[in-house]
C-alpha cells in the first residue's frame, strides 16, 4: 500500500445531520493532510506507524460489516458480568450478579463536540467512528463481581481499519473492576478512542489482556478524567497483538486522586508494543505511580514513553514512574523516554529506567538446583513480571492472568 487517503463519499453517502457531516468531514480532511503518524512526531519517536501499516497492509477499508453471532463462548475461570462486543459493536450484556438498575449500558451515542485534535488517529476516529459502547454506573454502587468486556473480532474485519469509541462513567462512591479481554483472529487495524470519567470517591480497576496470539494492530487513545479522591488502576498484560500502542492520558483534576498504571508484557517474534502515558497533575495532593515491565525476545520491540506533568498549583504531588526491560535476545529493542515537567515547588517526583539481559549468576544458582537453562530463564522471567501481577488482588483472576502469561512464555 502506498497511499492512504479516504474518499469523502464514505461519509457523504450516509444520511446524517449537517453537524455530524461537518464534524466528520473536517476530521477526515485533517487526517488526510496529516496521514498516519511517523517518527517525526515526538509522540511516535520510536515508532513509524505509517511504515508499519504500509508494509503490512495492501488495502484498508473503513466499512465493516457486523456479522450475526448466535453463540458466544464465555470464560469459566471466574464468575463475572459481561459485555460482549463483536467488531466493537455492543452485542449482548449481562449483569446478573448486580443490581441492574444501577447500570446503564448502551451502544455508543456519538457526539460531535470534540475539540480539534492534532493526533491523526483521533481525527480518523472522529471521522468514522460508529461502533462502541457507553457504560455508566450510578452513584453509590459497588460491583460484586468483575465485569469482562469481551472484545471479539471476526474474520470480517480482515484488512479493515475499525474506528471505535467507548465511554465509561463511574459516578460518586461507586466501584467497578473490569477485564477487557480481546479475542481476535484477523489481521486488521483497531483504532479506539476511549473516555473514562471517575467521579468523586469512585474507584476503577481495569485490566487488559488478550486471549491468544494474533495479527491485530491496535491503537487505543485513553482519556481519563479523575475527580476528587477517585482511584484509577490500569493493568496492561501480554498481549498476543502484533502491534499495540496504549496512549493513556490521565487528568487528575481534583484533589486526592490516585492513578496507577502498571504493565507486564512478554513479547516475542516481531511484536511491537508501546505504552505512552501522560499523567497531568492538575490539583494538589494527588498520587500517581507507573511501573512498566517488558520481557523482550527475538526481534520484538518495546517502547515506553511516560510523562508526568505537574501544574503550578498541584502542590504535594507524589509521582513516580519506572520502566524495566529484560532482553532475552540481542535483536530485541527497548526504548524508554521518561519525562517530568514540573511547575510546582513542593512535590515528590521521580523516575527510573533500566534494561538488561538475564543475570547469569542467578541462572547458575537455579541450575545448581537441577533446573535446565530454559526452565531457569522462565522462572526468572515470571519472577521479573511478578510484582505487576501482584496488583491483581482477586486470586481467581490472578490465576487466569498467570496462566495467560505462562502460555506466552511457554510458546517462546
Amino acid at each position, binding site marked *: 500500500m502506498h497511499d492512504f487517503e479516504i474518499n469523502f463519499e464514505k461519509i457523504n453517502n450516509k444520511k446524517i445531520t449537517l453537524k455530524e457531516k461537518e464534524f466528520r468531514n473536517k476530521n477526515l480532511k485533517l487526517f488526510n493532510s496529516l496521514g498516519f503518524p511517523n517518527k517525526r512526531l515526538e509522540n511516535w519517536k520510536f515508532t513509524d506507524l505509517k511504515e508499519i501499516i504500509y508494509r503490512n497492509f495492501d488495502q484498508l477499508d473503513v466499512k465493516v460489516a457486523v456479522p450475526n453471532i448466535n453463540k458466544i463462548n464465555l470464560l469459566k475461570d471466574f464468575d463475572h458480568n459481561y459485555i460482549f462486543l463483536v467488531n466493537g459493536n455492543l452485542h449482548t450484556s449481562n449483569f446478573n450478579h448486580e443490581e441492574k438498575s444501577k447500570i446503564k449500558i448502551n451502544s455508543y451515542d456519538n457526539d460531535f463536540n470534540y475539540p480539534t485534535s492534532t493526533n491523526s488517529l483521533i481525527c480518523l476516529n472522529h471521522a468514522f467512528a460508529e461502533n462502541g459502547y457507553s457504560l455508566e454506573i450510578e452513584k453509590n454502587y459497588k460491583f460484586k463481581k468483575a465485569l469482562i468486556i469481551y472484545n471479539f473480532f471476526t474474520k470480517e474485519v480482515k484488512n479493515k481499519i475499525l474506528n471505535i469509541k467507548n465511554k465509561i462513567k463511574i459516578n460518586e462512591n461507586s466501584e467497578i473492576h473490569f477485564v477487557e479481554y480481546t479475542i481476535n483472529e484477523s489481521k486488521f487495524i483497531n483504532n479506539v478512542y476511549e473516555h473514562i470519567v471517575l467521579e468523586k470517591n469512585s474507584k476503577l480497576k481495569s485490566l487488559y489482556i488478550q486471549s491468544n496470539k494474533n495479527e491485530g494492530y491496535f491503537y487505543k487513545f485513553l482519556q481519563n478524567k479523575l475527580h476528587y479522591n477517585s482511584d484509577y488502576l490500569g493493568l496492561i498484560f501480554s498481549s498476543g497483538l502484533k502491534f499495540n500502542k496504549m496512549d493513556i492520558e490521565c487528568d487528575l483534576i481534583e484533589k486526592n486522586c490516585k492513578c496507577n498504571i502498571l504493565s507486564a508484557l512478554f513479547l516475542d517474534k516481531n511484536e511491537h508494543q508501546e505504552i505512552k502515558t501522560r499523567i497531568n497533575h492538575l490539583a494538589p495532593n494527588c498520587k500517581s505511580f507507573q511501573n512498566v515491565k517488558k520481557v523482550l525476545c527475538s526481534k520484538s520491540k518495546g517502547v515506553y514513553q511516560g510523562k508526568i506533568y505537574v501544574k503550578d498549583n498541584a502542590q504535594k504531588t507524589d509521582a513516580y514512574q519506572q520502566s524495566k526491560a529484560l532482553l532475552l535476545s540481542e535483536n530485541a529493542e527497548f526504548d524508554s523516554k521518561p519525562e517530568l515537567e514540573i511547575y510546582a515547588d513542593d512535590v515528590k517526583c521521580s523516575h527510573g529506567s533500566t534494561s538488561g539481559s538475564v543475570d547469569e*549468576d*542467578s541462572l547458575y544458582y537455579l*541450575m545448581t538446583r537441577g533446573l535446565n537453562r530454559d526452565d531457569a530463564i522462565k522462572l526468572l522471567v*515470571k*519472577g521479573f513480571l511478578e510484582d505487576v501481577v501482584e496488583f491483581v488482588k482477586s486470586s481467581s483472576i490472578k490465576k487466569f492472568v498467570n496462566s495467560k502469561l505462562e502460555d506466552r512464555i511457554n510458546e517462546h
Partner: protein
Amino acid sequence: MLEIKNLQVSINNKQIIKGLNLTIKPGELHAVMGPNGSGKSTLANVLSGKNGYEISGELNFNGKSLKKIPTEKRAQRGIFLAFQYPLEIPGVNTNNFLKTSLNSIRKAKGEKEIDSLSFLKLVKEKTSELGIDEKILSRQLNVGFSGGEKKKNEILQMKILDPNLSILDETDSGLDIDALRIIAKGVNSSRNKKKSFLVITHYQRLLDYIKPDFVHVLSDGKIVKTGCSELAEEVEKTGYKKLN
C-alpha cells in the same frame, strides 16, 4: 564418589588451582580449609559446573568424568552446592522454586513428580527438623532474607533435594552460634554410609560441631597438608602461614 586428579583451573588466564588431588569416598566428610584466595570457592564452583573456567586434569563423579556435564545435570546426579553468597531471586516464590527444583531432579532420576501435598509434608518435616520458620518459604527466594536465613535456606534445600555429594562453601561464615548449630545439625542428620560432604571453611569453629573424617589445607591452589580433625585445631592455633 568424587575423584580429583591433578586439577588445574584458570580464569581469565590466571591460574587459581594448580594441581589438586582429592578423593572422597561414600560416607566421608572432608573439610577444606585455607586462607583467602587459596582457591576454595573456585573448587566449589568448578565442581558444580560454573561456566567461565579453563579446566584440565581429571574430575570424576561416581566413576564418570564431570567435565562435559552441565550444571543442572550435575545437580540431577546428586551434586549440591550450598552457596557462600546465596542469590536473591525477586518474584520467585521459595516454595514453588523448591518444588520445581525437586521435581526436575526426580524427573531426571526417572522418578514420579512429587504432588503438592507430599511436598508440603516433606517441607514441614525438614523445616521442623532444622528449627526453621516455615514462613520464609512463602517469601521470594532469599529476597530480604538475613544472612543467617539465607544460609539456613541453603541447608534446607540440601535436606529437601537429598544429594549424594554436598559441597558447603563457607556456609558458616557470618553466622551466629545458634544458626551455626542449625547448619551443623542439618549436616550431621544427613550423614550416612552413602552421603558425602565437602565442607569449605575458614575457621575451625564449624568443625567443633561437624566432625570431619579428613581435613585438607588448601594453599595457593594446592592441598599442602592432609590430616584428621586435629589438623584443624593446629591451623587454628598456628595460622596458615606456618604450614606453607
